[in-house]
């Protein structure tokens, strides 16, 4: 039932968006401007912007990947914490403490800052 409702809502959103594109096509003043130059304060672009972008926080992505996997365990843990009692709480928070130790180590190494 939820699956059907989700599909109906999605179909309606795509329909409305299509409708907007249709109305825009109807009332358009001119055809889509093709080959426009990107905005660089009035200058012509010297290179394509689609290049190897030097991201400054790549260490943050790796720490995020590792820490995020902890969430995989936390969601089912949230269901059973009421029955399992203190042992589940202790286990999960030991698990979290280990990962937080990793994050503090990364902070000391300067990985949370932009290079």
């Amino acid at each position: 039932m939820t699956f059907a409702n989700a599909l109906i809502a999605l179909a309606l959103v795509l329909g409305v968006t299509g409708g907007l594109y249709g109305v825009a096509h109807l009332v358009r003043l001119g055809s889509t401007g093709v080959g426009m130059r990107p905005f660089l304060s009035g200058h012509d672009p010297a290179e394509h912007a689609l290049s190897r972008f030097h991201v400054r926080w790549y260490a943050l992505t790796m720490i995020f990947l590792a820490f995020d996997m902890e969430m995989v365990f936390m969601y089912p843990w949230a269901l059973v914490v009421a029955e399992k009692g203190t042992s589940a709480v202790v286990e999960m928070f030991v698990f979290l403490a280990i990962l937080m130790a990793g994050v503090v180590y990364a902070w000391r190494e300067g990985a949370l800052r932009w290079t």
Partner: protein
Amino acid sequence: MIELTPWWGALLLPPVLAAFAVAAAVFDSALTARAAGAPAPRAAAGAPLRAAGGLLLQQRRRTLAADAPLWRGAGITLAAAGVLASLVTPLGRWAVGDLSVGIVWFNAMEIVAWAAVWLAGWGANSAFGLVGGYRFIAQGLSYELPHMFALTAPAIGAGSLRVADVVSAQDGLWFAVWMPVAFLVFLATVLAMAFRRPFDHPVSRDTAGGVLAELSGVDRLVFLAGRWLLLVSGAGMAVALFLGGGAGPLLPAWLWSVLKTAAVLAALVWAGHRLPTVRMDRFAELAWLVLIPATLLQALFVSIVVI
């Protein structure tokens, strides 16, 4: 207590969200007009609808060597994610969808915004758009974990990931009362999720509108509508998880939900007007070293109360 609406309920979901989005946009432009001393703020009430009309009229643009399919898809994906995020949020007694893992579904739908905003920035083949798109991913990496722990706290409190159970578990006392840290962090991360001010660095003016630098016409309209819908869905989920959904003394349940969501939306938009734009090279450390331990302690406190 929350029962599933039949199929036509799903048809009502996008219009209700759109109504909330327009109301929030009107409130936002009224605030800006009052600050700028422009003509009567009442005239600003029509500004968002006039702006939408203007965007419909505006000519669309495609930059040179742009990745057009991915770029156009970004706006539509953002709008779809904005609507699907509140599939499981109950309005009063009705909910369009009822998943046993509603909270995880809401979390998954807002992550779609990461891909959509990056694509809008990357697809335009423009330096400012690229910088804006990457800023949003840095923002995502910083706000996501406090957000997840803030979502987990009510789940622990209710012992279930189903939003209906979380709402019914708040009969006695609303979760916002005994999970204040999780509530505040959740509201802040809802602003970050919808890249609204103060977390609007990806679309800020220092890079000529960042991700929005090359978007015009109906593509821009769909993208901005998606952004508003995401904010409305976040506010709706905040009401369901922390403010007891439809619970309230006199008025019918759905009216309580509407009032609470409107109040949360107004608070979020108002907070946006008060705070400067937060840059991520400063916020990342704050999020990882202050917000994550705070929400973890909140989760610890909640789990101790629960066992």
